């Protein structure tokens, strides 16, 4: 499976580099060498036990190395899942940043730069060079290495010192192609000291073909900065979506990440948050609603390298039909990360006998003065509660719905953008009712 991509890289090496930027090319060959060594991860690997890519990788995907423009104007075809969010809106179509042509994006706060990673890498290389690949190239992970070799562009955001973004930023990844297609994009987010930003990443599919997306996002959150990252996936069943989110937190910074999978095919979220300064706060949440043959694996690591940091993790899954869920909660507390407080919860509801959930806490604690806890449960809906509701005249279906909604509610409550929170309540309810929480831009889900 790897061989065709290895050949492709060798043949197209010049084109790949020509259509990217020097800063990105600097580490490209090294990433490729690492991919050659590691290959694609298989479920035989401990870290990929719950993700099986064999079938998805057997498909012959097209890549757009020569950056031929895709005939779609997302500003016209896309209608947002979250109306009323008033975001700064950007698109990555497949793996190319789409030129900004929306007037309201032009009034970013002073000094903020948002745009194509490739372009900014060419126009402001000094801005990127200390950051690009700093978190990703050190990982021994075949998918991340593959991304380092093949990603040519992506989304870039820079928020300078003490600048507070006045509106959320929204990045919509649209997968659009007439043939089975592979997209590799790399995103880079830099928040300088005291900066504040919220990013909502939405994943959508437009065409009824097989998609394979492998995206890496690196986020640097400097001292006293505050960053919120929301990922909302609403893709079709033929999508393989591999998303790596790597966040580095400096002293007294705050991070909230909320990763919501409403509809998908095969999804793997690899999330690693490194706490590299004291007094950091981290809240990492996620939610999965899956049915049919959907698969979602959230592999999370929270790394406490410095003392006096707090992290909380909360993941909830509702699995129906033949769907499969995986959760890994890795918590690492370094020897001198004293006074760490770290809590992790994963709760799961299986609605059918054929749905499967596998959950694994993985705690490595080397400091002695810490408060850590973890808990995981797998259950079905509370029958007693359901009967109680029915005995008050609520139909069985409605009772199930209320219970499932209640179950996911605390994850939604952790959304700090009011319009997004309201919208999520509605989308989750619709999703639980079995109506697809469709986005109008999506022909498959209509």
């Amino acid at each position, binding site marked *: 499976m790897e061989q065709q991509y290895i050949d492709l890289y060798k043949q197209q090496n010049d084109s790949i580099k020509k259509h990217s930027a020097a800063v990105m090319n600097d580490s490209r060959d090294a990433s490729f060498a690492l991919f050659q060594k590691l290959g694609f991860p298989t479920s035989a690997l401990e870290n990929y036990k719950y993700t099986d890519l064999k079938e998805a990788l057997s498909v012959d995907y097209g890549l757009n190395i020569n950056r031929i423009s895709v005939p779609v104007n997302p500003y016209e075809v896309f209608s947002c899942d979250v109306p009323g969010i008033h975001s700064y809106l950007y698109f990555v179509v497949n793996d190319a940043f789409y030129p900004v042509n929306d007037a309201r994006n032009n009034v970013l706060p002073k000094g903020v730069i948002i745009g194509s990673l490739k372009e900014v890498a060419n126009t402001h290389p000094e801005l990127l060079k200390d950051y690009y690949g700093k978190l990703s190239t050190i990982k021994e992970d075949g998918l991340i290495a593959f991304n380092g070799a093949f990603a040519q562009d992506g989304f870039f955001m820079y928020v300078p010192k003490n600048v507070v973004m006045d509106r959320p930023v929204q990045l919509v990844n649209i997968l659009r192609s007439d043939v089975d297609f592979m997209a590799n994009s790399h995103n880079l987010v830099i928040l300088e000291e005291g900066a504040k930003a919220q990013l909502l990443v939405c994943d959508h599919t437009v065409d009824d073909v097989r998609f394979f997306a492998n995206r890496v996002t690196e986020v640097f959150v400097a001292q006293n900065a505050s960053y919120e990252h929301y990922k909302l996936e609403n893709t079709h069943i033929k999508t393989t979506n591999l998303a790596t989110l790597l966040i580095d937190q400096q002293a007294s910074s705050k991070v909230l990440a909320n990763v919501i999978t409403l509809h998908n095919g095969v999804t793997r979220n690899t999330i690693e948050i490194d706490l590299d300064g004291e007094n950091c706060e981290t809240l990492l949440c996620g939610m999965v609603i899956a049915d049919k043959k959907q698969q979602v694996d959230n592999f999370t690591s929270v790394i406490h390298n410095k003392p006096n940091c707090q992290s909380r993790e909360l993941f909830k899954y509702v699995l129906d039909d033949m769907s499969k869920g995986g959760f890994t909660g890795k918590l690492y507390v370094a020897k001198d990360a004293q006074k760490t407080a770290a809590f992790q919860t994963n709760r799961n509801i299986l609605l059918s006998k054929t749905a499967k959930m596998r959950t694994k806490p993985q705690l490595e604690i080397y400091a002695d003065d810490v408060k850590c806890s973890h808990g995981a449960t797998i259950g079905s809906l*509370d029958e*007693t*509660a359901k*009967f*109680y*509701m*029915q*005995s*008050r*005249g*609520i*139909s*069985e279906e*409605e009772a199930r719905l*209320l*219970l499932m*909604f*209640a*179950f996911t*509610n*605390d994850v939604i409550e952790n959304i700090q953008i009011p319009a997004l929170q309201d919208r999520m309540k509605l989308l989750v309810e619709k999703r639980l009712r079995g109506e697809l929480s469709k986005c109008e831009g999506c022909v498959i889900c209509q």
Partner: protein
Amino acid sequence: MLQIKNLHASINGKEILKGLDLVVRPGEIHAIMGPNGAGKSTLASVLTGNTAFEVTKGDVTFNGKDLLELSPENRSREGIFLSFQYPVEIPGVSMVNFMRSALNEHRKYKNLEPLSATDFLRTMREKKELVEMDNKLANRSVNEGFSGGEKKRNEIFQMAMLDPKLAILDETDSGLDIDALRIVANGVNKLKRPDNASIVITHYQRLLDYIVPDFVHVLYDGRIVKSGGKELALELEERGYDWIKKEVDEAI
């Protein structure tokens, strides 16, 4: 209104109700007393359609309908209400959403439009006052973290909201302090009308001072073995159940 004939029910293959007969007419209050484990709560569960119990024999009709054929939700919509001996906590489901869903499903069943938000909130307020329920409780998740007495009061609040034809109160008095007992009993009495009825399951004569029964039945070993007027409750309070057990055993 309610006719139970030769009702047999079992759980996990163990027979609990062993040929129970009972007739309740509109306007009547029936008290059911009996030793622990006799099957009182089982009767309530069977009447409300709890699928944990299997009805193996017998008939139950409610206002002319075959009750055992109805789903739990339709029994409720037909006007049966159970105040649970052990009310269930439902974290994450707010009292308001719970009650709104319940009330509107009742209305839909009767081909009525859903209540407007203002009408609904007004009804909530009125009924809360009836059982003197704390506002804070109504803003929380259903029964979550409620004290024993608060849960019981919440049951009567729900009863007031749903306005049932037949209310079954399963040990609603247990866990209530003296003042709460009076408030809850008053609430029940205020909801009393000539066209509705109640079955009051209790261990204590005390409650029957407030809610005065027309009939008192003794449920023992899955059957009603003795019935009488309200004075039977006084006699049971005084003499316990041994003499009845003896009577039953001698009759066999």
